């Protein structure tokens, strides 16, 4: 592919999106060179900002016709480089499509455009006593379309599930430039669950243009407990005991001493001084259930050796507790010149072993690691702190970060719980999946995007040539090919 081809598309793109919404100026293009993962950069050949689904379809159809790769971008907050532009391709920026199109409170559904921010959906639903459950830490800015691409979670997905559990319909533009719906908006599937397969496919199967999401009734009561411990393993024992008691809290988060120090410096969240770990447990639901669970959780936290347990019952106190947790990623910037945000998952019962292993690796490498994690579901976010002025430290930090993922896999976990594979982790995919597993996943890719133009180079370490279908290849049954029959 050459940039000449992309330049050839400019007149058509201007016709489709309007001249003001087609960016060709090199300086302006540079502002789109990365997403939230700034270590990977690539200036796109062209940026377009379509305003409607039809415009997106026309943009993609032009790219498909010219054989030009294209990448969709929401708010650009992704942490795995999923929206990293293709240097010879078109970056399709969804920020002009941010309307909340419909709220149906009785059906508990909203229809939104992909550029709408995550939080704007909950804000629009609040007057009806409803909210949109997935709540990634970046919810003020991240887009729902990006959430669909990444199958975003958030602190409260322990109880409420991920984006895929809250999306019931998607209007997409296929990589061939055709508009189609996946799912019938109700949450009941007919035929293959393409809605489920598309969600979390990291922008490689098409571009979302409308999203039907489930809304949930706002919980009647919310209680947040903060428990301080001498060590993370004490805190981990409390987590196991809570789960063992048959309680599924809305969230269970843990921070270790280093991340507490950073958060304290950044937002003065007033966490207990000298704590080796803090545990944040949030319970929500009907008042009569939450009150019962709260007493049990408090007792279990104390029994596990808490040095202090605080309950935050009003929204202001709760906000302060969460401010510390939410600020953690940015806050470590105050105690280290540079850091890597890692995202790995282990079975909850392995948390203690894995944290000990990370501590050992950290000491061995001479690189500090601050741990912030969703303890309830075993999703770790080790923050690897280093000085990027030192090439040796940089290498050591990257190696340590990789070794942490190896540790997660050794314990039966995953290389990513919520940040995605993107460009950042595609090289780790063969450690988690066999060649046959990856080949099978790419059959889906070949079904949607045989020309491999839609966000190429992401997720998979090596692309599959879609012509190479193993086994017998026969034409579809005539009745199917003639459109007389569906797959079911």
């Amino acid at each position, binding site marked *: 592919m050459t940039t000449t081809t992309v330049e050839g598309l400019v007149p058509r793109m201007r016709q489709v999106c309007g001249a003001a919404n087609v960016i060709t100026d090199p300086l302006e293009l540079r502002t789109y060179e990365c997403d939230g993962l700034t270590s990977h950069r690539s200036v796109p050949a062209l940026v377009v900002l379509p305003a409607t689904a039809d415009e997106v379809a026309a943009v993609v159809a032009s790219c498909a016709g010219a054989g030009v790769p294209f990448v969709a971008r929401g708010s650009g907050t992704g942490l795995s480089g999923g929206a990293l532009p293709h240097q010879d391709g078109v970056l399709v920026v969804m920020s002009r499509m941010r309307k909340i199109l419909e709220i149906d409170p009785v059906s508990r559904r909203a229809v939104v455009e992909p550029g709408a921010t995550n939080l704007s959906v909950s804000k629009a639903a609040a007057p009806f006593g409803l909210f949109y459950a997935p709540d990634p830490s970046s919810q003020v800015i991240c887009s729902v379309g990006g959430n669909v691409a990444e199958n975003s979670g958030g602190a409260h997905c322990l109880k409420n599930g991920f984006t895929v559990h809250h999306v019931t319909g998607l209007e997409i533009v296929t990589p061939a430039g055709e508009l189609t719906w996946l799912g019938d908006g109700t949450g009941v599937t007919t035929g293959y669950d393409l809605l489920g397969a598309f969600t979390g496919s990291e922008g490689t199967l098409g571009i979302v243009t409308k999203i039907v999401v489930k809304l949930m009734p706002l919980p009647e009561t919310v209680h947040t407990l903060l428990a301080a411990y001498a060590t993370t393993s004490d805190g981990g024992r409390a987590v196991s005991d809570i789960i063992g008691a048959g309680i599924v809290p809305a969230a269970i988060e843990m921070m270790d001493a280093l991340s507490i120090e950073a958060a304290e410096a950044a937002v003065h969240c007033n966490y207990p001084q000298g704590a080796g770990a803090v545990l944040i447990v949030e319970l929500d639901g009907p008042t009569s259930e939450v009150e019962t669970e709260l007493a049990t959780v408090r007792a279990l936290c104390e029994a596990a050796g808490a040095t202090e347990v605080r309950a935050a019952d009003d929204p202001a106190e709760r906000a302060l507790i969460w401010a510390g947790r939410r600020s953690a990623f940015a806050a470590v910037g105050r105690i280290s010149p540079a850091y890597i945000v890692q995202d790995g998952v282990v079975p909850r019962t392995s948390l203690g072993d894995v944290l000990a292993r990370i501590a050992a690796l950290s000491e061995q490498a001479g690189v500090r690691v601050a741990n912030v994690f969703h303890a309830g579901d075993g999703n770790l976010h080790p923050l690897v702190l280093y000085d990027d002025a030192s090439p040796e430290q940089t290498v050591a930090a990257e190696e340590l970060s990789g070794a942490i993922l190896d540790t997660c896999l050794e314990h039966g976990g*995953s290389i990513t719980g919520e940040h995605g594979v993107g460009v950042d982790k595609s090289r780790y995919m063969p450690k988690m*999946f066999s060649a*046959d597993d990856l080949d*099978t996943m790419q059959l*889906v890719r070949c079904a949607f995007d045989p020309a491999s133009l839609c966000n190429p180079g992401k997720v998979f370490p090596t692309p599959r040539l879609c012509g190479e279908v193993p086994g017998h290849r026969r034409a579809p049954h005539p009745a199917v090919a003639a459109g*007389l029959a569906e797959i079911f």
Partner: protein
Amino acid sequence: MDTERALVPHIRDALSAACPATRDGGASDAVAGVVPALVGSPASTAEASALLAAAAAHDLSIVPRGAGLGLGWGLPPASCDLVVEMSLMAEVIEHEAGDLVARVQAGTTIGHLATVLAQAGQQLALDAPAHATVGGVVATGTAGPRRFRYGAPRDLLIGLTAVRADGVVAHSGGKVVKNVAGYDIGKLFSGSQGTLGVITEATFRLHPLPAAVSYVTAEFGAAERAGATAAVAAAATSALVPSAVELDWPGGSSRPLRVGVLIEGTAAGVADRARRMSELLAAAGGAPLVAVSPTAPPRWGQLPSSSAVIRTTFWVGKLPGVLDALVAAAADAGVRPAVSGPAGAGALYACLDPRTSDDAAGRFVRGLRERLGVSPAPRGSVVVLTAPPAVLAAVDAYGAVPGAALMRAVKDQFDPGYRMFPGRLAGGS
């Protein structure tokens, strides 16, 4: 792909070499009336892989089978050389209670799994028959009343092992609940009805068994349909977190309607929530007869014996219009469907009496589709889940399915020879 050819001795030998528990098919192995030439019972994923590879080499058509409960739903197979049945893979491989996760072989029954999990106070939160298999439940997407709170199998499945039509073994997901590495092939296989491959293992997220349950029911006279739909809406949008919101309307428009709400939780919490839910249903529904019971009301989550089952899905706010359409379409067609299902989750099943004529059944389906129409954006569907072949031939079982062209493309990739459950395609072979 005729049966005679599969009986050629060397083919049988090849399959037996791959999977020792391979035998001739008989009348009791028939899939919707089609007798398979051979039945293979793999004892491991490796054997299933070898069996499917051998079947691929001889171009055999294949029907995967669990307990066989879903085989009659949809069209019969156009051809069935080999049934791959999963009864030798019936073990709970791993249950880590502290992780609320279980890894299970596909032939494990729901009842056996429930017994194992209950020892740790846990459950797979799906309502499926005890003798159904895990693989069958995933492949058919079976979900009952608690779909309202916990969703369908696709929502609880976190890892999958399946054997493709060409014999290749594929894994996706894993054994951690939170995991976004790679495409979710488990979603694709959920509800795929054996048309993409054979599921051999599934890993699920579990839930704690509730300490207490309570069923709140409200009865409405035939004339109080509006009260019943208002009660469904009130329950479904309440912050009392019901686990199920069901509507049951047996035997047509002249009979009473029952709204049933399941509450699960702690003993004290459930007592309080059930009381408040009964007040809510009474207030919303215009003073119906409300009862609270620790046991399920009759027919809870069960469909009556019927010749045809038609599933209607909808946005819950449109429930009054859906009931109007059901009544009108039934009257026009001269049928009296029993209507029940998870109305609060946007689905109802209309079951036609076994004596219903094929013509009348076809008219009912067409009438329903005309009345419920097609919105610019999809807002539901009318799907014939099971019906006599003549009815299935007369009406398109699935109607206009969003993304049908992409589904065909997926099938082309996974099963280019169209050997996995051929004929499950609506409209013929």
